[in-house]
């Protein structure tokens, strides 16, 4: 059977070519190559999100009256429902963490340089999409914390000049966060964003495959000083097995976190109740949330919130356009590294402040 199936498939699919390409593919091996695995781990977590998300869809009901109860049903009545939901929530958080680690490692190792500019751009867009996934998914259980966090989060869009009000209405599906917001964000979360993400992931992987792994400038310099052959390992099976090992470790971590720290559901959202204390967004939005809090109401005659939002917008655009602005000289690279460090410190400090301020 197998002996007949293989030629049949090979006649119709470019399997042999693909296998041949993979067999010749090598991955550079040096002291920083451990950072190569974060991209793969992010991809693995994305796959986990698709899988567990599809499972959750089987029982979830996207309406203000039923959403909370359906999630409650999933975690209390459906066999292993608590596990599936917890893995989805934990995996989302680990995915954001992995994506950030991947971004900063690429930044510090200067992997965005020519000819990998588009790989970087698609990567930053994917990170923004990941954050959008987090934001839209947060409301879906329709609990108190997520309800008010979404209210605050969507309200920030109002500071955008001219189109701000329209943007808020677009995000909320009306003037207020309501059942219409829930179905809207649900649609984004399970249809619009996954479609864009899948296309971008495809492009990102294609580009990674096309250009191969980037070698950091310092390693390249050492190679130039010592003209020995660059150390590489074969993609098949060496790199793939290491990837698989990393993925299994991530899976084990997810299972452990979900089992010992199952994701809480909280109390059902009541649009007419006062906001409870301790309303805050997910940890990866905390730095922005805290920065907004520390902004004075007016700054040199301009609305403070607007200044903060504008600064974040410029940061985002700067991140996307980084490979076109950074010069590939020792000075230029040092500037990139220092900018990265300052950003990282700023975000960490703001997150720490938010965490400290919110602890009762």
């Amino acid at each position, binding site marked *: 059977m197998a002996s007949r199936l293989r030629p049949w498939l090979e006649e119709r699919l470019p399997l042999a070519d693909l296998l041949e390409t993979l067999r010749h593919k090598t991955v550079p091996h040096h002291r920083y190559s451990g950072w190569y695995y974060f991209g793969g781990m992010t991809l693995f977590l994305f796959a986990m999100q698709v899988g567990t998300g599809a*499972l959750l869809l*089987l029982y979830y009901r996207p309406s203000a009256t039923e959403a909370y109860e359906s999630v409650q049903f999933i975690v209390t*009545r*459906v*066999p*292993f*429902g608590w*596990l*599936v939901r917890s893995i989805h929530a934990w995996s989302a958080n680990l995915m954001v963490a992995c994506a950030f680690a991947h971004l900063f490692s690429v930044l510090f190792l200067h992997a965005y340089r020519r000819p990998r500019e588009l790989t970087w751009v698609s990567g930053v867009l994917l990170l923004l999409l990941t954050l959008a996934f987090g934001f839209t998914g947060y409301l879906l259980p329709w609990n108190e914390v997520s309800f008010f966090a979404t209210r605050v989060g969507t309200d920030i869009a109002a500071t955008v000049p001219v189109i701000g009000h329209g943007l808020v209405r677009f995000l909320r599906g009306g003037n207020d966060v309501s059942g219409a917001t829930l179905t809207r964000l649900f649609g984004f979360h399970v249809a619009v964003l996954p479609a864009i993400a899948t296309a971008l992931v495809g492009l990102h992987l294609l580009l990674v495959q096309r250009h191969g792994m980037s070698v950091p400038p310092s390693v390249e310099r050492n190679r130039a000083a010592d003209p020995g052959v660059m150390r590489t390992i074969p993609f098949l099976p060496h790199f793939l097995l290491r990837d698989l090992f990393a993925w*299994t470790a991530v*899976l084990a971590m997810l*299972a452990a976190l979900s089992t010992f720290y199952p994701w809480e559901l909280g109390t059902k959202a009541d649009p007419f109740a006062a906001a409870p204390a301790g309303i805050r967004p997910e940890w990866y939005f905390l730095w922005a949330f805290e920065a907004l809090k520390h902004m004075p109401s007016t700054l040199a005659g301009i609305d403070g919130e607007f200044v903060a939002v504008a600064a974040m917008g410029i940061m985002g655009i700067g991140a996307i356009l980084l490979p076109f602005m950074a010069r590939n000289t020792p000075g230029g690279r040092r500037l990139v590294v220092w900018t990265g460090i300052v950003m990282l410190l700023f975000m960490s400090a703001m997150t720490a402040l938010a965490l400290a301020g919110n602890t009762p």
Partner: protein
Amino acid sequence: MTRAFRGSREIFRTARKNPQARKSIRWGRLFSAMPSLETRDRRNVLNWLLGLWGGGVLGAVFYPVARYLSPPDIPEAAAVSATAGSARALLPNSGRVVPFGSRPAIVVRTPAGELRAFSATCTHLDCTVQYRSDLQRIWCACHNGQYDLNGRNIAGPPPRPLETYDVNLKDDEIVITRRS
């Protein structure tokens, strides 16, 4: 496999006789210290371990998923009886579909004026039947199945008659009851 074990046994035997060799055995280095162990055997052991690991991971993933996919049983009290509206409003040669627990039932007043009730779920493929006054039969629109006024399947694909319920009147209200 067997050769691999024989090889390791050989090492231990030598080690027992020779203290110098015993020193050289460390568990972590056992594989590399095996002189008679061929690469092929070593690879077999590793492949076997890899398979075990892969199988474990797959099992740990697919067992919960399979359990998750089977919907939990929601205990629903099997309806014993239900009210089915006004008897006077149900004219001769007409029928009415009413809820009976979580499934539909059909109440029919025959042209002779008698009240009868059946399960309204077609025995063919689960569609809900209706009363056809022109045919004076219970009819299923999905595949043209037909039942007479005793619920017997008389035309079309239905394989079994409809379940018959008892009909009682409480003043003007029709009460249908499952037969025990």
